[in-house]
């Protein structure tokens, strides 16, 4: 059982994710370079935050064509576990592994702060140690986190319970003023139909140790580790 953390030129949360897996979750982990065609038998892949390829053209637009993402695509289609965080979420959307797109924040500002997200679906490999309706505090840090999809897709996401996290107040209300970026339906994270690919704007690796201000983010890693042990 092994985690792989992808490094693109411009990734900057790769080491944080690596640290969390190695030092906090105490699991084997390796870095995977963007030019690699091989996922080195990893059982779960983290597509980390940052600015892959400088966010040139659009966030994630160039990264999606990298050799490693071709391998991740095949891995995901075969049921492999893939977690995209922030820029990783943007890359997964551009790659077509998740529907929709992440647009410029409605306020046109880079937003960097802890936010509350409500767990909408606790029956995924990424949230199985959480309770449905539970409110987690996890930081965001992004300029393009404004989730958008067409109405048919939103309907499908709701029907299939693929909206995993929504921005909420501390008491769990899905309110407009709890929405930091204008995301459709307060969406903070979604998964694919197979539930093996999750994209989320909040950074769970940044709230995985008490020294960093919170540990709610670690629940995502805990869930993944539990699933991997079972597998």
């Amino acid at each position, binding site marked *: 059982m092994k985690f792989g953390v992808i490094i693109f030129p411009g990734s900057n949360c790769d080491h944080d994710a690596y640290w969390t897996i190695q030092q906090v979750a105490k699991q084997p982990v390796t870095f995977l370079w963007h030019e690699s065609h091989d996922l080195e038998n990893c059982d779960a892949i983290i597509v980390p935050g940052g600015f892959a390829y400088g966010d040139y*053209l*659009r966030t994630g*637009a160039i990264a999606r*064509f990298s050799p490693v993402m071709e391998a991740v695509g095949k891995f995901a289609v075969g049921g492999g576990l893939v977690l995209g965080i922030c820029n990783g979420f943007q890359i997964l*959307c*551009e790659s077509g592994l998740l*529907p*929709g*797109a992440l*647009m*410029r*924040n*409605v*306020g*046109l500002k880079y937003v960097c702060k802890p936010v509350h997200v409500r767990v909408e679906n606790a029956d995924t490999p990424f949230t199985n140690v959480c309770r449905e309706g539970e409110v987690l505090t996890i930081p965001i840090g992004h300029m393009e986190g*404004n989730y*958008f*999809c*067409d109405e048919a897709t939103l309907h499908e996401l709701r029907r299939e319970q693929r909206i995993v996290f929504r921005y909420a107040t501390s008491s769990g209300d899905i309110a407009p003023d709890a929405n930091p970026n*204008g995301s459709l339906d307060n969406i903070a994270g979604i998964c694919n139909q197979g539930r093996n690919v999750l994209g989320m704007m909040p950074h769970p690796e940044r709230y995985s140790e008490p020294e960093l201000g919170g540990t709610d983010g670690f629940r995502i890693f805990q869930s993944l580790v539990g699933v991997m042990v079972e597998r």
Partner: protein
Amino acid sequence: MKAYVYVSLKKSVLDPQGKTIQSALKKMGYKGLEDVRQGKYFELTLDGGLPRNDAEAEVTRIASEILTNPVIEEFQVRLEEQP
């Protein structure tokens, strides 16, 4: 030959940057403005190896597969022979 690709957000997609520019222009006193949409513009220089129809098809492919995200954006292509 030159190819010009104009990328804009679909009409159904809110354009917060366009809205901000519009309200700034209004505050500055510019008149007669109904809406502002912000987009992107690409200038591609072609090597002349492809006939015009094929070149247009190729640029359209580039625009739809890479230069735009079809979830939120649309584009127009214009080709121009160089003197």
